[in-house]
């Protein structure tokens, strides 16, 4: 019998990449800090995903004006 973790408890999943690419990566990571093709691919993908994160507007115009007033009062803005 195979015990399967519920989907929410799985920490890793599998993706497929072309075998020649896998071999190239395997060659490339020799003598680096990467211990596997998976760890290398995870590293690269994290880098790409981080660059694409969305940003919400952190403050309204009203808030901005109120904050500028406080910054002036504290001497941070002239």
């Amino acid at each position, binding site marked *: 019998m195979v015990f399967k973790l519920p989907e929410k408890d799985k920490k890793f999943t599998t993706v497929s990449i072309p075998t020649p690419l896998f071999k190239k990566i395997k060659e490339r990571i020799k003598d680096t*800090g990467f211990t596997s093709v998976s760890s290398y691919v995870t590293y690269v993908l*994290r880098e790409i995903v*981080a660059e694409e994160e969305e*940003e*919400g507007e952190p403050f309204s115009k009203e808030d901005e004006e109120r*904050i*500028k007033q406080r910054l002036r009062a504290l*001497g*941070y*803005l002239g």
Partner: protein
Amino acid sequence: MPKPHGGKLINREIAEREKEKFLEQASELPTLNVEEGLAKDLENIAKGVFSPLEGFLLEEDYFNVLNDKRLANDLPWTLPIILDAPSNFEKRNDDTITLSYENRPLALMHVEEVYGYNKREFAQKVYGTLDNIHPGVAKLKDMGDLLLGGKIDLINEMKTPFSKYNLRPVETRILFKEKGWRTIVGFQTRNAPHQGHEYVQKTALTFVDGVFINPVIGKKKKGDFRDEVILEAYDALIKHYYLKDRAVISILPFEMRYAGPREAIFHAIVRKNFGCTHFIVGRDHAGVGDFYPPYAAQDIFDEFPDLGIIPLFFKEFYYCKKCGGVVNEKTCPHEEEQCIKFSGTKIRELFIRGQRPPEEMMRPEVTNIILRSGNPFVE
């Protein structure tokens, strides 16, 4: 300017007009008193300093941080921000409680989870040691056996004598924008500035638009400089040696964990939330004693290609009499006898004896502030 960590600046502060209603509610709820360090964590969560956290870690996040140095959603996060409670804490999930500091209600917490944790595992993974000499390990012994996870709403701020230096991330972001800074380097410190600090900051400043000096204010080790001395010393340094429009100082109320490499990543995330694009990491950042290799806090950045802030690594600096300036092993060819090291211990010893450090080591204006302060050190 970089996006806040996780993409959104968190605000869990109750608006002024609603405070009365929340205070009334707080007075009717079960209360948990928290110590100073936790009260500071609360404020940092509420003000967005710890974005994307909206409260104390839930169990899944806690174990992810411990094991993978990431939140459950894969976002880099290296220090567990946790709230402990005694083992007799009534385990009622989905409760709201009041968190108080010195018998004054600070926040409401919506307890989503109550869970156990292993202190030895925590110590080994976060501090890399079980040695009680490490202040983080020693503190763990006094912590409760349960952890509470859930969002918080801040009702009252802690009272601080340094409120004029206490800016929120939303405020620093607007300040940097107003100053026209697009690139900002963050500098973490818990010391009065010597020439080595100034040199590192100014070297970094050569490449960016502004420097954000962000001293940690709060409980420190015996022998550290007192908070008010650090702030006055920096004010003097900035006044006499920095361009007014290139340096900003604001405090970070936070209890140091001395978690070395893990804390270096955490410090970088916090500065990213303040709006910094770069962060200075020197030798033995956030270290204590000999618990971490001198440059472990730099090496750990290799694990985080998705951090969203650029670390600037610096080697140890010293003053070379022959070069006539501050140098490091990469820039100075002269023998060791020519060097004056910026040793914190040596500077401390000089002050304890009432002596002035040489000007090559510390600016005279900074020295004057420290000498005038009476006892400049934490006892």
